[in-house]
């Protein structure tokens, strides 16, 4: 870790100005990812701009009937917000499937979007990594890639975005609000994270210096039929091998609207609108679910140690859709957590 200075920014425009004026500076939310990366010398900011005084930690109703999440609202406060629990239970589930209570108490919603991949090589300066050092090579290709992408990867990078929360946000069609040197703008969630292509050093489409100020959830929350299913190497406190966020609207057993997004499989939360279209208008049956699952994984490519994720993802999609349909199921394997007398 290098030495750095730290100051709480008093206001949004001041934060943005500070960032533009100080090359090598970085915003810091809860610090749960950034500080770890600094300890490993993966990130070496010379100045940290604190965001806690920007007044961006509230969760409020928005004019269009949706909900606005401040960028500095913690993951825990977001998950347990009564409106989120009631109207966006998919988001509640996804957040609670991630990290640990301590981390969720610190982690902010903006930081969650911006968290970096957990690729082993990205974290270890002894190994080449295009994302960390463009042009140095991708060690995960041909290496240990259990947690790596099966969809949308490139020859430069096969990393995944590790967030759970973001998978739900993709399914719910959230909008990201940002402020930058050129003013404010909004970014559709599906356009926020990007595929690696030949510039894996860029995780998302934020312009230099831009600050996330909040997230807008649309009015429609799919509170009746939803499921977040996360499969991982232990029951809690592990990143997803595969996760599925799905939300349905049903009318007498027929699917009238559908959302389907996957985590742990690509450089971004992987929403598949073609698969959603295959669900809409169809009966909510195992056959329909399998057809959608086959569509999502049609272009999947394994990298060796992650080949199993293709089959696992298919099964997870079918299960998540079934759970979302029935809503009387063991929601995910967290149910085992409470089986102790």
């Amino acid at each position, binding site marked *: *870790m290098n030495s750095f200075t730290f100051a709480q920014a008093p206001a949004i425009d001041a934060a943005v100005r500070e960032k533009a004026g100080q090359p090598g500076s970085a915003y810091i939310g809860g610090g749960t990812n950034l500080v770890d990366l600094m300890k490993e010398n993966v990130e070496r900011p010379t100045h940290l701009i604190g965001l806690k005084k920007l007044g961006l930690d509230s969760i409020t109703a928005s004019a269009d009937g949706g909900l606005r999440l401040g960028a500095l609202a913690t993951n825990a406060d977001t998950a347990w917000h009564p409106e989120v629990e009631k109207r966006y239970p998919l988001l509640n589930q996804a957040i609670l499937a991630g990290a640990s209570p301590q981390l969720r108490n610190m982690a902010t919603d903006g930081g969650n979007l911006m968290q970096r991949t957990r690729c082993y090589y990205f*974290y270890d300066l002894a190994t080449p990594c295009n994302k960390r050092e463009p042009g140095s090579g991708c060690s995960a290709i041909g290496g240990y890639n*259990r947690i790596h992408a099966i969809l949308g990867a490139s020859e430069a990078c096969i990393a995944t975005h590790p967030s759970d929360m973001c998978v739900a946000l993709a399914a719910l069609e959230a909008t990201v609000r940002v402020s930058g040197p050129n003013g404010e703008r909004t970014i559709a969630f599906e356009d926020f994270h990007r595929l690696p292509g030949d510039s894996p050093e860029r995780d998302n489409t934020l312009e230099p210096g831009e600050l996330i100020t909040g997230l807008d959830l649309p009015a429609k929350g799919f509170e009746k039929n939803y499921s977040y299913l996360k*499969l991982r190497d*232990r029951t*809690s406190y592990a990143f997803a091998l595969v996760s599925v966020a799905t939300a349905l609207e049903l009318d007498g057993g027929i699917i009238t609207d559908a959302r389907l997004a996957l985590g742990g499989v690509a450089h971004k939360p992987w929403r598949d609108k073609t698969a959603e279209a295959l669900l809409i208008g169809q009966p909510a049956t195992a056959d329909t679910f399998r057809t959608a699952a086959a569509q999502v994984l049609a272009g999947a490519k394994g990298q060796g140690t992650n080949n199993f994720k293709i089959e696992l993802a298919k099964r997870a999609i079918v299960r998540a859709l079934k759970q979302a349909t029935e809503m009387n199921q063991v929601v995910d394997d967290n149910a085992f957590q409470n089986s102790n007398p």
Partner: protein
Amino acid sequence: MTLQTDYIGKPTSRIDGPAKVLGTAKYAAEFNVPNLLYGHVVSSPIAKGKITKINADPVLALPGVHQVFSHENVPSLAWLDRSYKDDVAPGGSPFRPLHKPEIRFSQQPVALVVADTFELARYAASILEIEYEEEAHETELTQHIDEAFEPGRGKTGYQPPKSRGNFGRGWEQGVAHVEANYSHHAQHHNPMEMFATTVEWLGDKKLNVYDKTQGAFNSQQYIMKIFGLSKDEARVISKYTGGGFGSGLRPQHQLFLAVLASLELQRSVRVSLTRQQMFSFGHRPETLQHVALATAEDGSLTGINHFAVAETSQFEDFTENVVGWSGTLYDCKNVKLGYRLSKLDVYTPLDMRAPGAASGSIALEIAMDEMAYAAGLDPLEFRIRNYSDFDQAQNLPYSSKNLRACYREGAAKFGWDQRTPEPGSMRDGNLLVGWGMGGGIWDAQKQPALAKVSLDADGHLTVSSGSNDIGTGTYTIMTQIAAESMGLPIEAVTFVLGDTELPEAPVQGGSWTAASVGTAVQEACAKLGEQLLKQAQKMDHPAFKDAKIDDVQFANGQMRLRSDLTQAVVLRDLVQASGEPKIEAQNSKLPGMVDMIKPPKYSMHAHNAVFVEVKVDPDLMTVHVTRVVNAVAAGRIINPKTARSQVLGSVVWGISSALMEESVMDHRFGRFMNHNYAEYHIPVNADIHNIDVIFVHEEDAEVNPLGIKGLGEVGLLGVAAAVANAIYHATGKRVRDLPVTIDKLL
């Protein structure tokens, strides 16, 4: 001395518990001695090659940086390999930190940066420019099986496995056969507390060394020999250890580096390793195993063949008993055992909880399950039919063995008789249910140890031995033993450990501390008893005039005549009357040493049987271990509470190695890649469900007077195999490469 049971055998809460909970228990990196400097270790990014250049100038130019130590400027130290050998060193030539430019394993410590603050040292270490010349390394065991060789004796206590009978004939005599390969990968101990040493410079080469270790004396010997220090100059203190599991059996790099820096700079220095650097030293070696079993018509084993190849470093031959247990646990005339090592460009492996046995029992106990199926027998019935009543490997009777009770009581508690054998035949709603079992055997060991007891005029007894408590409960059970022996209330006894100024005790490992130090404490108490009797006689106490030590007993803070309990004298009064501030006694090492060299008359072992239930999602193949019953036969249980904790922990370890634990090496880099707690998976609370621990009755007058066999390790045996067997029962999938992760079940 006969034991009463005021304390022994009674569940007793940890005496060190409050200090740990309140934070007053200080660990090696928490001694904030004045004027402390901080060292940060620089680790090699490559697995093999050499350092061609170190440019320390920019780092040394930073204000607050004191020195950069590397092979370029380390002073001349002890020359002979012998000086670098610690008590637990295997055969070979121990690694010497900062000795030569050669790199012999990834993450090898190559430099130590010492600065005024921890942060500065860490930053300076991160910008230190080192150039390397890389050479091709070999780290893949599967590629080097052919070069494997039979190791010699090397490490103290290691016995090469002995075959007996004629396996070939036994195989032919069999009517049912199984034969398969088994494997598991490297594992790291990863105790919560990271390795750290704080060296307090007291002037003139005199040091107080606060070290994270499982044996203060082992660390002391090591630095004395390397740095030419006297016992007085090198006092090692280790009162609390935040987990060891074997990782602290050998002195780690940071001890050498901290002492080096302190002596060179004549300052107090602390060096702590990072979590990532905890993957830079010993680990449970990756081991490839082959087991072949044959049974006769009646299910009796006619042949056992168990062969293992394990990794070791290029410079030391780390040996452990992987296959030997297969010649003891079951009754069989024809046993063929083989054990080989293959040298790789890695650091020397290291004992890790139940070393050898944990690995061997994976292969043997899965194979036994396969054999039971092939022979058409219930796995428990199969084991009972092959019960060993006599140790055929050592050709000795057992001092005691109540594994039968483990089988019986464990199975009853678990409800094993409800099991239907067909894989996939048991369900809980939609979930597949699997029941599997396994078990194991572990040496009941004892090492010579010293203890001192000191009774003061207030009637308070201080018991001391330079042993260690890695969380096993040593503080507590030694206090119990002493209180019991002297008939004092437990509050009147204080046990001190972890200091080389105290009487010498061995490293804490092998599950021998309770037996070794416990016996020493008991012997010291017996000596104290004799002194107290003498004192009573000196005082012309009429009742004790002609009494022999066997005529008296110690209870209620008194010494009493057995024949007339009303004839008593208060212990405190004896001290007061002596005119001395205290009466002291110490045991002698001699009986322990004699025990060690005498040819054994008995085979002395602890055993266990473990029963496991898993539930498996039939589509997603997620596995949950929902129920475990572990029945243990380990002689007398001094403290059922801390003993139960040891077995609970063992079960968690077993589940971990069955389902999760694996240090994953990328052989292109010769480097462990999941070197942190986020990616090196061990169970979290949500993975652990019901665990029942049973201690079956076992009396053993031969192991030691206390009848203790030790149980820090035995509870782990067979657990991983039982989980894998349960998964087979649930799914019909036989996974022989652990951990059984989801990809292997899809």
